[in-house]
């Protein structure tokens, strides 16, 4: 099975928010490195679990909340504001800016805050990169409601009336250099808007800061990823380079790292109902600019509150 085929959970490997389709090309480099990478890609694609929404387990989440609370309160000193802006019931698309490398603390802090605020009974799914879901030892994420990011999965989740958290910026944004910490960068990915329009659900922007201070992110390593053909094989357009504990120089961040205890502040903004604000046939580009501007303004305000890196 090639990486661009439809996987067994019924979704194509084209991520949400990425409007581009991948052509069925051979990865760079024939010979054994190419074959090895292809084999690895096949392994990973096969390991992506079927998106069974029923795998989410409220009892498991409830029992895990104290651990999450300790991590979120003591290590990240998390602060989540504006949860009251999220509609009390019904499907909603939570759109976040993504920070912190492969171990993104925003997701931890937000999942705890959301589950505590609305109760574990409220259906809540997070869309994640295939690699995250197929990585050994991360299977527990599925019990939290993490499913592979694909239009089909998002559609299924929204149709079930759930709140769905997406990070359109994905790997591009999460590995941005640390000095771009206060920048919202969705790389022009507008899939989330089409999703919201198609299902007529409100968008709640969720803006967070602090994640990019959990390590010193130096570069996305996009050219390195292209050179190795990872972009086509694993949907990985980046091969991030960072200075992180305990590795020192950390290339790829595949084994994760120990995130530094940076203060994480998250703010949920009032819901945006696209058809109310932009008419019955909203222009996706205009809506995109609007959402990005709102999020960037909030992120600027959150950045202005911070006095020192890490400490907040």
């Amino acid at each position, binding site marked *: 099975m090639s990486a661009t085929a439809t996987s067994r959970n019924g979704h194509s490997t084209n991520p949400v928010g990425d409007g581009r389709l991948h052509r069925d090309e051979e990865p760079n480099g024939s010979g054994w490195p190419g074959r090895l990478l292809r084999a690895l890609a096949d392994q990973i694609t096969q390991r992506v679990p079927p998106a069974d929404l029923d795998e989410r387990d409220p009892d498991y989440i409830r029992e895990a909340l104290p651990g999450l609370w300790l991590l979120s309160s003591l290590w990240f000193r998390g602060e989540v504001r504006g949860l009251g802006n999220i509609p009390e019931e019904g499907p909603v698309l939570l759109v976040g800016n993504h920070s912190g490398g492969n171990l993104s603390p925003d997701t931890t802090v937000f999942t705890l805050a959301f589950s*505590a605020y609305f109760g574990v009974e409220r259906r809540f799914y997070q869309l994640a990169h295939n690699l995250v879901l197929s990585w050994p030892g991360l299977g527990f994420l599925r019990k939290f409601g993490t499913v592979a990011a694909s239009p089909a999965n998002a559609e299924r989740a929204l149709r079930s009336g759930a709140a769905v958290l997406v990070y359109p910026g994905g790997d591009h944004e999460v590995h941005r250099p640390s000095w771009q910490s206060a920048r919202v960068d969705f790389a022009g990915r507008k899939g989330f808007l089409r999703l919201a329009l198609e299902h007529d659900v409100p968008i709640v922007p969720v803006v967070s800061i602090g994640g990019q201070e959990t390590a010193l992110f130096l570069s996305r390593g996009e050219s390195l990823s292209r050179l190795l053909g990872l972009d086509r094989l694993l949907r990985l357009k980046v091969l991030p380079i960072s200075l992180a504990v305990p590795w020192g120089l950390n290339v790829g961040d595949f084994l994760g790292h120990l995130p530094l205890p940076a203060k994480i502040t998250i703010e949920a903004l009032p819901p945006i109902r696209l058809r109310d604000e932009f008419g019955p046939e909203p222009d996706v580009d205009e809506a995109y600019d609007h959402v990005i501007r709102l999020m960037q303004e909030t992120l600027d305000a959150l950045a202005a509150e911070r006095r020192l890196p890490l400490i907040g």
Partner: protein
Amino acid sequence: MRVGATIEVGAPPAAVWEQITDASRYLHFMHGVTRWEVADDRSPGLGARYRMLMRVGSAEIGGLIEVVEWEEECDLAWTSVTGIDQRGRWRLRALDGGRTHVELRLAYGVAGSGLLGWLAEQVGAPTVRGHLRRSLQQLKRQVEHEQLRRQAAKRRSQREVSAARPAPGNGTSDGS
């Protein structure tokens, strides 16, 4: 984990009871509480449900609660329906001189959460205890303030009544 706080209020139990049975006042005197709202159509009493949240650490914690004990001007207890496990209780006891001994207790935890759950309870306890203590101080201030206003209003009406009397030279004796 069970935490509690007590205070003595310079007003009779009825005045305190009035405050603690009115959901709309909780946000005014409960410290750290970010939400306390009626969750069903029942009037206050046994079986009434509320949705409450208290900020502890990085999250707002709470859930749906139901009143399971309602003894007028004496005891009010609730237990959780959803959210973290909790039992709460107001205990009002009349003291001499129209004063009231008020106790607020809260037992909380997450069944099945193991060692981390125990640790989280311990770490969160000082914050919760602080919230309860400050809540009682604010309750005391509010109840006593209302008590004073009520007494003043009573005196005022007495004055007005006596002033309305035709008999001259009947000045009020209190100077307030």
